[in-house]
């Protein structure tokens, strides 16, 4: 066999879905002991490639792979696992209702072979998790963990039994929901794995991470391998051009400057994770909220929108108090909400794009005739506006790539013409080009008089697109940054330091 005898080599990897070529003859070599970054726009085939390696999809005939010179059976999860391939999938692949112990042991081994004793398994699990995070009760169901904890758990799981140089560790956008300091923890783990000689395949949309962690970088575009280079021989600009297929303009639009009347006020709002919060949100404003995991940032929008019931406080929209804890009331007051959890909260995966987009803004009364054709026509224009690819309104939501799903949900609220948009991690998992489209759409909405509140773990994003950024800590707002004080570094340091309530 002509393949290099160590590391992973892929030859002619192709995969067609009904109606779509996701991968078209990708060749890729990943050398042992290296971190290989895999980049590409949303829908370029990164996750598909990984799912083939994981045995989740079968590739089209003609695709071959070799691991350390041995041919790798593709399309069998068991074979992949046996060969030492370990994965952290884009959606993490955890089972929410199982506890940490069981999630760690899935697919590999328990401490006991014949008899599982709760105590012994807990001790083994704790040992594994402890190196990565503190204070997690391993008997808790995974559903109760924070997104960052979940990611770390998924990574910890791959570490079980990957101490040898034999396998491959694959991380598909592991940092999409991680705050900055957790990213550092993750990188440390990645370097430790790398040190054992195990190659790492690392998928991300965050280009700066490539330069921090990767040795080699490859770019996919439309299912083809279009670029590879040593990291120290390329630039972010060059990568962006390869990802997008063309040089991009400035990524971030200027934040809107003119703020109008107050549209949303919160007074004394307390709820789980948030204490006694006051907030004003103006028409035409993009207000950012930063904060570490657990600072209350994640809960803020849920409380404001009504996904969670606040214990106390008052929320008014355009001067009218809304019923707390009632999403329908918020929506009819003109609020739109993009939750962070795409799979469970922001969309109905098994409905079509059309159905997902129009759900909050169906005609009334509720027995009015819906013309499916007119509805699709309308939705198609919105999908095009947000550069959703493919802009096929009749398609099932679950078959879109991550970034396109995000844009579709955004289209739902923009189409409704919501006056107030509460957005959690609006560009999570979105590629550079897609981000640009989203930023432009958000800017346009703000200029059209909407009030936007964005929470994000991406400090740079907030620094660039918001006129004002609030920083949260321990459930309170501890800093308010705007104008010249608003920089990425200022956000990060304000998140980390104790501050006085702003």
């Amino acid at each position, binding site marked *: 066999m002509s393949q290099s005898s160590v590391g992973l080599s892929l030859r002619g990897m192709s995969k067609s*879905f009904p109606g*779509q070529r996701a991968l078209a003859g990708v060749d890729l070599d990943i050398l042992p002991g290296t971190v290989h970054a895999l980049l590409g726009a949303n829908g370029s085939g990164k996750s598909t490639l990984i799912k083939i390696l994981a045995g989740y999809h079968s590739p089209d005939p003609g695709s071959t792979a070799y691991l350390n010179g041995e041919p790798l059976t593709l399309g069998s999860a068991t074979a992949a696992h046996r060969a030492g391939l370990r994965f952290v999938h884009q959606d993490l692949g955890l089972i929410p209702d199982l506890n940490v112990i069981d999630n760690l042991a899935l697919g590999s081994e328990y401490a006991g072979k014949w008899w599982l004793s709760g105590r012994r398994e807990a001790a083994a699990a704790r040992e594994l998790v402890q190196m990565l995070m503190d204070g997690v009760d391993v008997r808790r169901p995974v559903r109760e963990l924070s997104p960052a904890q979940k990611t770390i758990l998924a990574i910890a799981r791959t570490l079980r039994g990957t101490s040898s140089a034999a396998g491959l560790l694959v991380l598909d956008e592991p940092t999409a929901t991680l705050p900055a300091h957790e990213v550092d923890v993750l990188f440390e783990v990645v370097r430790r794995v790398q040190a054992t000689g195990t190659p790492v395949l690392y998928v991300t949309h965050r280009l700066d991470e490539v330069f921090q962690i990767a040795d080699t970088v490859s770019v996919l575009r439309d299912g083809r391998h279009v670029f590879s280079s040593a990291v120290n021989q390329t630039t972010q600009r060059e990568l962006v051009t390869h990802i997008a297929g063309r040089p991009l303009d400035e990524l971030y639009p200027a934040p809107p400057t003119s703020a109008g009347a107050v549209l949303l006020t919160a007074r004394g709002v307390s709820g789980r994770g948030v204490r006694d919060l006051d907030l004003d949100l103006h028409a035409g404003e993009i207000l950012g909220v930063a904060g570490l995991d657990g600072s209350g940032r994640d809960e803020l929008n849920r409380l404001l929108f009504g*996904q969670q019931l606040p214990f106390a406080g008052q929320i008014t929209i355009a001067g009218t108090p809304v019923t707390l804890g009632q*999403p329908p009331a918020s929506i009819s007051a003109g609020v739109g909400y993009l939750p962070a959890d795409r799979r469970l909260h922001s*969309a109905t995966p098994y409905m079509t794009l059309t159905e997902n987009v129009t759900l909050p803004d169906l005609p009334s009364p509720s*027995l009015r*005739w819906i013309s*499916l054709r007119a509805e699709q026509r309308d939705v198609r224009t919105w999908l095009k506006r947000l550069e959703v690819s493919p802009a096929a309104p009749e398609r099932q939501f679950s*078959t879109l790539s991550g970034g396109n799903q995000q844009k579709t949900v955004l289209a739902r609220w923009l189409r409704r013409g919501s006056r107030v948009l509460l957005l959690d991690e609006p560009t999570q998992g979105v590629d550079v080009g897609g981000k640009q489209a989203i930023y432009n759409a958000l800017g346009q909405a703000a200029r059209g008089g909407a009030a936007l509140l964005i929470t994000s773990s991406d400090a740079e994003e907030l620094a660039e697109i918001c006129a004002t950024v609030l920083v949260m800590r321990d459930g309170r707002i501890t800093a308010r940054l705007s104008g010249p004080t608003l920089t990425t570094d200022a956000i990060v340091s304000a998140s980390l330091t104790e501050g006085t309530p702003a």
Partner: protein
Amino acid sequence: MSFNMTTAPAEVTTDDAESPQRRQSSAGGRHFARFSGVYVLIGFIVVYALWVPETFLTRITLQSILGDQAITGIITIGVVIGLAAGVFDLSFASNISLSGIICGVLIINHGWPIPAAIAVAIFSGVVVGLVNAFFVVKIGINSIVVTLGTSSLLAAVTSWLTNGTYLTGFPKGFTNIAIPKPLGIPILAVMLAVIALIGWYVLEHSPLGRRLQATGLGPEAARLAGVNTARMTVFALLAIAVTSSIAGVLIAAKINSATPDVGAAYLLPVIAGAMLGTTQIKPGRFSIAGTVLAIFLLATGVKGLQLAGGGQAWITSAFNGAALLLAVTFAALGERNVGGFWRRFRLRRRVSETASSETAESTR
């Protein structure tokens, strides 16, 4: 815990997506899958037309297929609306019996006027629906469990109401409900058509139906998109309960008697029809057209068998089982266009054809 017909991650692989371009190429397989029921129905008609032409190809056969499955169809439509909203109601069978018995007790034993008795019978369905809804929505219990419980309770009520006996001897005014044949079409078939039209409109072309389906496919996401999922669940349970009550009245009128366990016989055909219906027209989703097609598919098959002389009870039973499995299998295979079974043949035969997208699992 919820019963989720269409969204279980396990078996809905995301491989089924298709784009307009792709449509052309795989159109055959997909089309066949969506309409496999229609083809099977046509197949039945051809086979029976050749086998027993003198009895099968008659107006009476047509009328009897239409009229006899109408009640099953009406119940199934209610059940399908519930399933679409994520609610699986097993109490419909007891509900049918109860409503018939109420008509019997009020009309035969107490001499009530017919419209008043029918109103009470249908109102009993509303009450059952609300009781179910209380436990499902307020207490938060899975609908299968709740309705398993309430169906036991209803059976007790029915048997207590009648002391278990059989009521017969309805006045003509009541039995006449089920008799007329405007333009030669049995009135029950007309009622089914009306209810199916309403169901189709509500479920597939109204905001209400959209919200029902969103509730069934992803309640939390639906709630965050402003859907009052609790109200949708209540509506779904009421829809099943009321259609079952109507069916109970119609059955009593049709057979001129009210029996305490008449509903039980409908459990299997209705569930089978609803399940088979999800494989047709809009595979993986609940659709009224698919449901009606499924009901008449099964009805035609059984009717033809009867006419052809397959009189043993086991033949009907075998037919129903085989029809369900075959139709669902065809649908599954055609829809994946890929799927488990054929993949192997395909790979061997046309390796060059790149369109195959089988899941990994099936190669084992």
